């Protein structure tokens, strides 16, 4: 168990020492948040998906607020959960690359709730939710029963913790890599949508640890590491031109169309497996009589590409498949019928929503908006023009109801981003779109968003000084 007394002290100071000692904790609701890693929105029936892959999520959604236009704030687990826990964009917290570390100075949802008497526990599945990256900050209990594990591991662990912590309001966060590669799950669920037994390379691929991330087009580069295929010193490794330039080595395997189909079929099985675990969790909560007093929030940290751009992963570039995620919020007792809300929202909005329902003030500096203005009566929450995202391979994106605009080539944490965004024409290859958005309007929204942010690091201070001198001498644009 991880104890956090020094951090609490700091957070208390940051919140102005306003922890709610005078508020009756027994009147506050509890929260269970379930993160279904890598689950695409279009695999969830309640989010518009076809094929009845997720009957339990659909049943849950029938009693819930369903956010049909929910978008993740990153395409990678680490950064996306950092936004979920902080209500801020990743670049405000640290560098949006693998040097990321959650900053001690920024309070998390668990930390704030802890200050108001909540018991906070998490059962996660390792990977980027390893405590080494700092995402356990604020949880009084943070455990990872199985590395790269499933909700089948974390739900029982969470219930064990819960059984000792029902004497007051609680926050329980559960996470599983059920829909993440390795897609193939135990039979019969894992193969539910396969028309025949996969064999040969196709079988090895769907059961391999990261094999699908090594597929480009119809070639499995089985001996090449991800960073060899997509080197960090390639400015835009996700473009069609960059993908076409990858030369297969002798170990590369050319896949058959059926192999590629089975990747998607295995993924669908993984989605159903994740759904089944949500059902088991709901049964466990019902068994404990907690569904009348507990908010249940189901979400995913990002989606997955299943060959749309010749890729089967989630880290490169941005697309609807990567950013559109399920977000289902069931209030205590459930709604009589689903309330579908179609405005663009993000995982960044979960923190203020939770804190609002808990009756706890949100920390200063967050960018999320609480989603349930007016409580459970369905009054619309404040609308926004777009929701934004930051990817680890130098991408930022803006999404609205009509599509998305992506800008790539400059890291989200770079001090140069805002200026490059301002001075790069929409005709540049730095911009890509999906859907049919109003590109100038979305660019304007993106620029306004960046102006509001304070990128965390790094700031090239020495260069800035030299640059300022030269620019002032020559009178070029961009001079401070």
């Amino acid at each position, binding site marked *: 168990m991880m104890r956090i007394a020094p951090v609490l002290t700091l957070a208390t100071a940051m919140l102005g020492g306003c922890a709610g000692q005078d508020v009756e904790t027994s009147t506050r609701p509890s929260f269970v948040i379930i993160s279904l890693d890598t689950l695409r929105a279009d695999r969830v029936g309640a989010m518009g998906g076809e094929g009845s892959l997720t009957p339990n999520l659909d049943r849950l959604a029938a009693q819930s607020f369903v956010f049909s236009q929910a978008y993740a704030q990153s395409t990678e687990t680490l950064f996306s959960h950092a936004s979920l826990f902080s209500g801020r964009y990743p670049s405000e917290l640290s560098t949006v690359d693998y040097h990321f570390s959650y900053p001690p100075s920024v309070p998390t949802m668990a930390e704030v709730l802890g200050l108001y008497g909540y018991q906070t526990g998490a059962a996660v599945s390792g990977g980027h939710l390893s405590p080494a*990256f700092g995402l356990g900050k604020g949880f009084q209990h943070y455990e990872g029963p199985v590395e790269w594990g499933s909700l*089948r591991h974390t739900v029982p662990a969470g219930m064990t913790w819960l059984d000792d912590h029902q004497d007051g309001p609680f926050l329980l966060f559960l996470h599983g890599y059920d829909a993440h590669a390795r897609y193939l799950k135990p039979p019969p669920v894992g193969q539910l949508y396969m028309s025949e037994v996969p064999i040969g390379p196709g079988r090895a691929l769907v059961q391999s640890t990261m094999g699908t991330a090594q597929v480009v087009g119809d070639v499995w580069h089985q001996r090449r590491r991800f960073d060899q295929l997509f080197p960090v010193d390639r400015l835009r490794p996700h473009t069609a031109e960059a993908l076409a330039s990858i030369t297969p080595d002798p170990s590369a395997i050319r896949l058959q169309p059926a192999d590629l189909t089975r990747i998607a079929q295995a993924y669908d099985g993984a989605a*159903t497996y994740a759904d*089944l675990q949500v059902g088991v969790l709901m049964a466990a909560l019902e068994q404990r009589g907690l569904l009348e007093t507990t908010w249940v929030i189901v979400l995913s940290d990002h989606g997955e590409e299943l060959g749309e751009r010749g890729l089967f992963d989630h880290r490169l570039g941005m697309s609807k498949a990567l950013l559109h995620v399920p977000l289902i919020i069931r209030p205590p007792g459930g709604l009589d019928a689903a309330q579908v809300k179609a405005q663009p929202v993000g995982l960044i909005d979960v923190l203020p929503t939770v804190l609002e329902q808990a009756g706890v003030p949100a920390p200063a500096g967050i960018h999320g908006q609480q989603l349930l203005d007016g409580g459970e009566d369905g009054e619309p929450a404040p609308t926004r023009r777009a929701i934004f995202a930051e990817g680890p391979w130098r991408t930022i994106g803006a999404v609205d109801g009509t599509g998305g605009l992506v800008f790539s080539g400059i890291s989200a944490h770079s001090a140069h981003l805002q200026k490059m965004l301002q001075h790069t024409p929409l005709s540049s*290859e730095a911009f890509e779109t999906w859907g049919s958005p109003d590109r100038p309007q979305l660019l304007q929204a993106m620029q306004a968003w960046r102006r509001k942010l304070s990128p965390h690091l790094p700031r090239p201070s020495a260069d800035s000084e030299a640059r300022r001198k030269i620019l002032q001498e*020559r009178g070029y644009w961009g001079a401070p």
Partner: protein
Amino acid sequence: MSLVLWLTLAACRTGPAPTWSAEKVVSGVFSRLDKDADGVVRPAELWREGPSLASMDQNKSGGLSPAELLAGIQAQDPSAFDDRPGRPGVSVTRWRSVLRRSPEVRTRWELLRFLVIEAELRSPQTPLPSAAEVTALSEAGGPAYVAAQVRLEAALAATSPQGARQ
């Protein structure tokens, strides 16, 4: 509470039926497998691979009820089935080793590279540093880097949507 205990308690429960009973939780999977819709999954309806029906058939009836199917599914560890090795955890050190250069150098490099690519498209007459020169300038930093940056920015300024000077 173990799944088996939950299933047992659920079976013995009196009063209103639970919303999330084992039957309902597994109903989607069950109905896909139960092709003749007779309420029992029989050997011919199960996938050819995986645990035998006998291993899941707790009451030895020759078929699986929804509760038996769910228990059988949950008995398998998704991290270990199919004789595959466990996946190692994330090594923060190894993960970060992919980023060989310091954050400052990477920031300089990507800006200069970005400007070069833009200049190639928008200001083709501008003499451009090679990829190797971009790397060398970025690693060195200082006045030479800044001069190259300013030169490229100036070349692009005329084509900027925001105008030449701010």
